[in-house]
């Protein structure tokens, strides 16, 4: 296990360093440097000297590898630079947006786990009944509908039929938990719909495998009630293979979170990132993306280690 752990942590570190290089070079090298790009957009009539001065100010006159090392050092010192657009420290914006995204993600994950287990189990136990078909067809259709549009339509429907509007201005949980939840539950649910559909399908197929097992038949034969068989005997075992899936889902959830933050006007990391990308605010974009890569690698690492702990074959074959 120790050897496996060391190897897996090493690979994760390589992935993080590799992607930090990738991010840095995609942002710097391809379009010429960011200052040129920024100036081209701003159409300021700067002289060559002024432009060079600006480059020096941002350290862009150094060789590329030195720029990279400087950036890594800055990030490690927790000083990822000044936002080009907002003119304040990137970390400050990050700190303000982080709780919003964290809350959204946690609520979404709870939704994903609860609903996918529920729907997956029901459709497996009632395989090939109308219920199974309705859920499956809805899932196929639902995967075709863009998340942001579902959001817009739900907002419109609530307004037209119930004259209800989700609270528009962000309220932190600590200040007013009720309003905060009222604000977050709907977006979190809409943002998690895709993941629910995907996970429910996995739960269903895992559950179908288990329901074929001898011990499930034995449990039925003993005269146990169906709810006991399903909950205690089948679900517990079906949960194992899908448990790690929820880790991976956490990464996929971020796609939904970005969109939902924009639709529901929540000032989280996703909206910060979208704004920064649109304005080509590269210090912000670089930092946010690095954070998301570190986060994704960490989750992947956890998933793999959990696997190895649950199933000894994994660490041997690796």
């Amino acid at each position, binding site marked *: 296990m120790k050897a496996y752990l060391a190897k897996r942590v090493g690979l994760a570190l390589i992935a993080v360093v590799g992607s930090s290089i990738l991010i840095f070079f995609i942002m710097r090298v391809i379009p010429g440097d960011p200052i040129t790009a920024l100036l081209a957009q701003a159409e300021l009539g700067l002289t060559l000297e002024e432009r060079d001065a600006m480059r020096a100010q941002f350290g862009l006159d150094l060789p590329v590898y030195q720029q990279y090392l400087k950036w890594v050092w800055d990030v490690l010192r927790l000083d990822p630079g000044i936002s080009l657009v907002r003119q304040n420290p990137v970390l400050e914006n990050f700190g303000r947006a982080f709780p919003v995204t964290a809350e959204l993600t946690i609520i979404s994950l709870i939704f994903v786990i609860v609903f996918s287990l529920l729907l997956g189990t029901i459709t497996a136990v009632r395989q090939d009944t109308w219920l199974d078909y309705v859920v499956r067809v809805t899932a196929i259709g639902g995967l075709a*509908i863009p998340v942001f549009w579902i959001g817009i339509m739900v907002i419109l429907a609530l307004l037209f039929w119930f004259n209800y509007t989700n609270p528009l201005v962000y309220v932190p949980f600590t200040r007013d938990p009720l309003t905060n939840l009222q604000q977050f539950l709907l977006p979190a649910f809409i943002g998690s719909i895709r993941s629910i559909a995907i996970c429910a399908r996995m739960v269903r197929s895992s559950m179908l495998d288990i329901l074929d097992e001898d011990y499930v038949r034995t449990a039925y034969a003993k005269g146990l009630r169906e709810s006991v068989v399903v909950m205690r005997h089948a679900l517990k075992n079906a949960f194992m293979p899908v448990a790690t899936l929820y880790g991976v889902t956490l990464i996929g959830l971020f796609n939904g979170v970005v*969109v939902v933050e924009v639709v529901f006007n929540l000032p989280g990391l996703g909206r910060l990132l979208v704004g920064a990308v649109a304005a080509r605010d590269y210090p912000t974009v670089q930092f946010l993306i690095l954070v998301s890569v570190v986060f994704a690698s960490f989750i992947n690492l956890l998933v793999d280690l959990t696997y190895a702990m649950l199933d000894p074959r994994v660490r041997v074959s690796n």
Partner: protein
Amino acid sequence: MNQGATQNETAVLERRPRKTGFLPGLVFLVRRKPLGTFGGVLVVLMLLVAVFAEAMQNFDPIEPHYEDRLVNTNSTYWMGTDQFGRDLYSRLLHGTRVSIIVGFSAIAIASLGGGLLGIIVGYRGGVLDLIVQRIVDILMAFPTIIMAMVVVTALGTSLYSLIFAIGLVQSPNISRITRAVTLSIRERGYIDSARAVGVSEPRLVLRHILPNTISPWIVMATAELGTAILTESTLSFLGIGIQEPNASLGSMLTGLAQQYRNEAPWMVIWPGVAISIAVFGLNIFGDAVRDLLDPRQRGR
């Protein structure tokens, strides 16, 4: 039992109508895959819209009619107008064209780039394979939207950077598939035989390996088309895809449209319906293609 299964499979293969010709083939498809055929029809309709957008439009899609702003659906403006009085129906046609162009081009890039890369590293193996697989791992660790955003930040918002971004996001998946297939083909007897009679390496890869990877390759590319169009619409919705005044299905739903959604809901309803139908059509068409070309995956 095994024997029986094999005989059964042969019987099924023989029972399959080997009718040639377009019409009998079509009848076969409709009977066998009604839902997939429906998806195929939707896809063909979309392609027709993309090609004949100018012929089908009632107005110039970017021409404002300030006297007719935010008009609801009527006989002149079939889907109503937006805040500049632009005809939404005509914009929808051109938006569909953009989505089709971006979706198909991105998948073409991903299939060619990712697919060929998968074959080459799968065939070569060794250190090259190891390095490429680590890079693929890294690319796959990004949430797709984030990855596309990196590229768009670097290249700026344009049709081409959008295509490139989505193509790059999709290519790791496709390279994984072709690599896996190549790995298994590489060990087959006919590859050894070809090598034994002195076939050159490029010829070996192009004539003997590549044709045998085509089927899973097509399956993967068709399956990813819907995802590509969905990603395009999401990026455009977020304001980092197609820019005003040009229309794409996603950009028709951006913040500008949001401001008017309460007084002019048709502005946000139609483009979403169009995206959903397009992606739904592509998805069920892709499922049918997969079932027909790769029976092992059926019902998964």
